[in-house]
């Protein structure tokens, strides 16, 4: 009888340890998955903002809203125009999308909403730029659907 009880307690301990081990593994996998999701959102937020202030794309100025210098055949990085900013359309990367652009010139903020989708998690990337030759701060908000 004593031997059976000992064995039973041992089984319970071994099972509990295995359960803890399984929980730890699951927790690790979930954290790794969440880390990748967070990275994806951060990467898209930062590089969309990067592209917005460094490029010019006439088809969708969210991919680049810089002023184009026709003489030099180059875009003027960090120099944007209000016209280009207001022409921006929404852009999506799977379940990640650009929600809005806010720019502040002379202390007055102006927001352009690009999407009305419900969002669960958002990241804003802030950049210092020139808008129509005036110093400005631009904020691009990138969100995850949900």
């Amino acid at each position, binding site marked *: 009888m004593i031997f059976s009880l000992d064995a039973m307690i041992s089984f319970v301990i071994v099972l509990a340890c295995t359960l803890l081990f399984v929980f730890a593994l699951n927790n690790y996998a979930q954290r*790794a998955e969440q880390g990748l999701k967070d990275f994806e959102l951060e990467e*898209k937020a930062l590089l969309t903002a990067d592209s917005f202030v460094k490029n010019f794309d006439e088809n969708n100025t969210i991919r680049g809203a810089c002023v184009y210098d026709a003489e030099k055949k180059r875009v003027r990085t960090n120099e944007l125009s209000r016209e280009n900013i207001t022409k921006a359309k929404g852009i999506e990367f*799977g379940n990640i999308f650009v929600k809005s652009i806010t720019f502040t010139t002379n202390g007055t903020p102006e927001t352009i909403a690009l999407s009305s989708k419900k969002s669960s998690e958002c990241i804003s990337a802030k950049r210092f730029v020139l808008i129509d030759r005036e110093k400005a701060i631009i904020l691009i908000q990138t969100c995850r659907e949900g």
Partner: protein
Amino acid sequence: MNTLDAVLSLCALLSCFALIIGAINEEKNNVLETSDSIKAKSTALSCGSILDSMFSNSAEEYTQSINCKTQNNVLSSTQKNKTKTAYSIANTKKETYLEVEKLEHYR
């Protein structure tokens, strides 16, 4: 009676061991699958980051070998039987290596 107790206990012990080994094996397979998924997703995300970075910084081509397939702005990577996708700001020109579209003013 004591011998019967011992035999029953041994049987229970062996059954529990078999159960635990089975559970651990199942969990090992799950972890391997998850690991493949994570590898595939991180490779696809790396490709996306490289393409985004190339597009933002007016680069055109990335010559290092990278395990991604590209179609427009969708990138996919496969590890064993797990395929994961990521997206890029830019559209790609080739399917087998990383090359982004060139905007009009750079031509």
